[in-house]
């Protein structure tokens, strides 16, 4: 197999266009936000996410500085594997919120590694098909001043 993982054809939708934004909460705190979708034909439980890594302009964003929001709930990346009752629908956007230092306006290289098991495509005990929902794009950052939610 040339590809170790299954890849569907929706890769261009994973990093949602125009969604990269720097949100300033007051003078000293800001977060980088970004909406993402699954590259799959159906939704998945968050527990199925097996690999997650976000790179901005080539630098890894430490996963401890990332929060994933879905349906008004928020999860640390290392909590995701427990979330078998949190379903990420195939039409739903999840939001990544990253706590970073200053980020310049303009274009940025966003590179997301996002792999998950397909929870019904069982090949052997404990072995499921791995879907590669990774994506990479140059995205233009906009800045939002925000108070409150």
């Amino acid at each position, binding site marked *: 197999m040339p*590809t170790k993982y299954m890849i569907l054809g929706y890769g261009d939708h994973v990093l949602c266009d125009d969604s990269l934004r720097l949100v300033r909460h007051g003078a000293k705190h800001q977060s980088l936000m970004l909406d993402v979708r699954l590259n799959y*034909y159906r939704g998945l439980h968050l527990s199925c996410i097996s690999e997650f890594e976000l790179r901005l302009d080539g630098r890894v964003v430490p996963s401890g500085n990332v929060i994933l929001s879905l*349906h008004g709930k928020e999860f640390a990346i290392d909590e995701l594997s427990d979330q078998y009752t949190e*379903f990420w629908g195939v*039409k739903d956007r999840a939001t990544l919120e990253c706590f970073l230092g200053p980020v310049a306006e303009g274009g940025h290289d966003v590179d997301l590694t996002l792999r998950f098991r397909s929870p019904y495509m069982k090949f052997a005990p404990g072995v499921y098909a791995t879907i590669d929902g990774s994506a990479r794009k140059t995205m233009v950052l906009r800045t939002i001043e925000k108070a409150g939610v």
Partner: protein
Amino acid sequence: MDRRIDFGVSLYSFTQPWYERPGYGIADMFAFLRKLGISQYEIVGAQSFDQYPVPRPETVRGLLELNERYGMTPFSYGGGVDMGKITGRDMDDEEIFRESLNDLRVAQRIGAKHLRGTMLPLDYLPRLAEFAERFGIRIGFEIHAPSRPSDAKIQQYLEAFDKLDSPWLGFVPDFGIFIERPSPTLKENLERRGAHRETVEHAIANRHVGKTEEQVWQEVQAMGHAGEGDHIAVSQLFGHQSFGPADFDGFRSVLRRTLYFHGKFYHVDENLVETAIDYDRLLGLVVESGFRGTMMTEYEGHSYNLDDAEEQVARHIAMQESILSKL
């Protein structure tokens, strides 16, 4: 036309616009299906719901309202247990059984009469049939590629169904198990992904002559086609997009225990022919068996990123009508 066979359409057929088109939803599918004269449908929970395996109450209410508004009937619910959703362990059979009861409850809430469910070990069949009857919902186990009806496992279920002789359990053969040759849309897709036409033709010609995938890949490279697209093409034609002689005898054997069909297809051309799957022969066998029930159209063109579901579904229905009218 043979009036013993009626038609439904799985909303799965609309995967491409459902995923891609902003604002596109079930109402659009229903409006289209009514224009086609179709009122029965299958809905796949994991695809159509934003909460699964149990949809939000408001999702169910919304679906019931749409049924009402468009005069649609949910024929079948595509449930199925995600036995791998809990990190670090597989669900055991008892858990799968319990989740299957959840699927029955969801099917009941949305008003479906059939559940496309998850296959449980043979000794669960009596309990499953009992609950199916209690809920008033027939449970079908899909026969899906790469399984074939003649496979020992399927034949064991057939025997068990015969022994149990319950109207509440049976098969849902998916016509994707009868792909005899690659669809032209698959070939186009492989070429769009960078494969040379020669690679595709060579892999197809050598798929069933006793060679391994690796041998054929070596041959293709020797022909000067060593790109990633060429590699993908060989891999897909030996793997996920495989094809081969159709198991018509096996199909004949399972018909007596079949609840309905997944009319899987990849491309119906302007002459109303699906070249990959022999619908003439298959529908002939269905009618010959005396089967009464439903062909559930299941278009899978999104595999090739094709946004032509409406046209293809319409052609598929027209093709089936045309074939049945001649029988």
